[in-house]
């Protein structure tokens, strides 16, 4: 039985140790995990592979019991295979400009309407400005130049400068692996 567990809790030392100990004690193997701290809140999502006899409610109860002393939000759900997304490539989108309400709503509407999946999103606030950085999967069928122009026009009205750039430009400028291998990897993807 595979389950997805999420936890949101005010950050303190030892949280990840506690949650992984609980899962391990239930006989599970952790297959995937992502953890970060946002504005002082610890957040984690993990996928565990449990013994077939384990039921979701058992996992949920153990987690609620463990974090009963914290103000927390806990979710435990059965694992569902990810949606099938069209053939796509990874790009990085950046938006830089004055902070204001509605930026995320505008840009995510734009992306969703074009079947562009958001894989990661970060926001860095440095008032009066804000920087958004997103990692997105752009369907190969889209005309990139047209997409960039449309987005630039849309966000320009909010005073934001935008860029959509293939992730490889960031990988080559920040990693040391051979570029030839990176391009071969792309062709085999």
């Amino acid at each position, binding site marked *: 039985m595979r389950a997805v567990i999420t936890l949101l809790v005010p950050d303190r030392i030892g949280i990840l140790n506690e949650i992984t100990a609980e899962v391990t004690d239930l006989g599970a193997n952790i297959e995937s995990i992502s953890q970060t701290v946002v504005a002082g809140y610890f957040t984690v999502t993990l996928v565990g592979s449990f013994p077939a006899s384990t039921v979701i409610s058992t996992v949920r109860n153990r987690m609620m019991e463990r974090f009963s002393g914290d103000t927390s939000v806990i979710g435990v759900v059965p694992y569902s295979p990810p949606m099938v997304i069209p053939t796509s490539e990874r790009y990085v989108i950046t938006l830089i400009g004055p902070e204001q309400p509605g930026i995320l709503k505008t840009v995510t509407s734009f992306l969703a309407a074009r079947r562009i999946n958001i894989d990661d999103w970060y926001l860095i606030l440095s008032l009066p400005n804000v920087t958004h*950085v997103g990692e997105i999967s752009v369907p190969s069928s889209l005309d990139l130049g047209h997409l960039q122009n449309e987005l630039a026009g849309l966000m320009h009205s909010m005073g934001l400068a935008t860029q959509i750039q293939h992730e490889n430009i*960031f990988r*080559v400028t920040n990693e040391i692996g051979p570029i030839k291998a990176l*391009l071969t990897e792309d062709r085999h993807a």
Partner: protein
Amino acid sequence: MLRTDDILSTVRMIQEENLDVRTVTMGISLNDCADRRVATMVDAVRRKIRVKAGSLVRICDELSTRYGIPVVNKRLAISAASNLLDGHTQEAALRLAVALDETTEAVHVDLVGGFSALVHKGIVPGEMTLINSLPEVLAKTRRVCSSINVATTKAGINVDAVKLVAETILAISRATADARGFGCAKLVVFANIPEDNPFMAGAYLGEGEPDCVINVGVSGPGVVKRAVDRLVHDHPACSLDDIAEEVKHTAFRVTRTGELIGREVALRLGVPFGVVDLSLAPTPRVGDSVGEIYQAMGVRSIGAPGTTAAVAMLNDAVKKGGAFASSSVGGLSGAFIPVTEDHALSSAVTAGTLSLEKLEAMSSVCSVGLDMIMVPGDTSAETLAGVILDECAIGVFNKKTTGVRIIPVPGAKAGDFIDFGGLFGSGTIANFVSPHGAGEFVNRGGHIPAPIQSLVN
């Protein structure tokens, strides 16, 4: 996994610090186009360029969009055109040059280099034809660039060729007098010419190169300058070691950007990738200057004692960063000091702090030499030959490339201000402290023997 601050630093390099790919240059061998019949030779040249380079600009533009990084110039570098001119007349040389000019325009490429001859040991008829045709060729074409190699460390310096080229430079200046002698900006005189240099005006495809190849020239003086600025701002007491380290790291990132674009262009065109030339190539724009880097390092008055050391340190740090970044580094790969194309250097010449003699000293520790220097129109052939000989000596005896791109401006005298416009920039006519007095030495002609390769101290 990409980190947000890494992403943003790359974005900043491109958007605020003028990081670009200065040139994607396709090398094409035209040797198989040789024919005794001029029309047949010229037709073959046109056909081969169209076949090989027809998609170059489109692909560069697509990749520029994909990666969000400008590819400023798309250029061609052909095998030495003199190879096609044996047994031909100057008229044939002009027809070849016009064909190159027109075909380059047809495939939307900026410039074509390689109207070149290698005469460091002797001159064959085709090379003589090419050199003699240069005044007319450079006056009547827009995109054709030329280079003449007159010296190598293995062969020494062909002084007779140097004299011939000096006289040719004056003839080109006269032939393009209505453009202030601008034709001379399209000719580089080399010692130890690189076979894979993607930058103009000296690009050509060497004899040991493939039939078709993609070489890339990166830029990035603005990026390096801003990196040094940030370091000095955050650590005002930083040492020169710290600055060298910062430049090295920055050069790594700049070089990798160039290799990515170059490799993908080559992949899409189905031709081999050659090299990244990691030269710091300035433009007249403020914030895109090599001279500004020296100022950021602490040489406030360019030309002051210490400038040569700053040039050497910068050049070395760039090479170290680039060499780690890529195993395909070639071309010139150093810091350029083209005076009119770099506003800080040009201003220093105008202010009188940077002399031509100091520039010559700087060229001993960087690439490429006395570059985009404007001198009075009445400068003698002996003086020009002496300048070329001095630069050749620096290159030949230090086992490096050096070059001279010098523009005698017709009717102009020292102190006059000339503006060529665009990327070629502007500047003040300078003169040598002692322009005369070496005529007897130069006019002896002959050959300066190759230097001894041992007893090197």
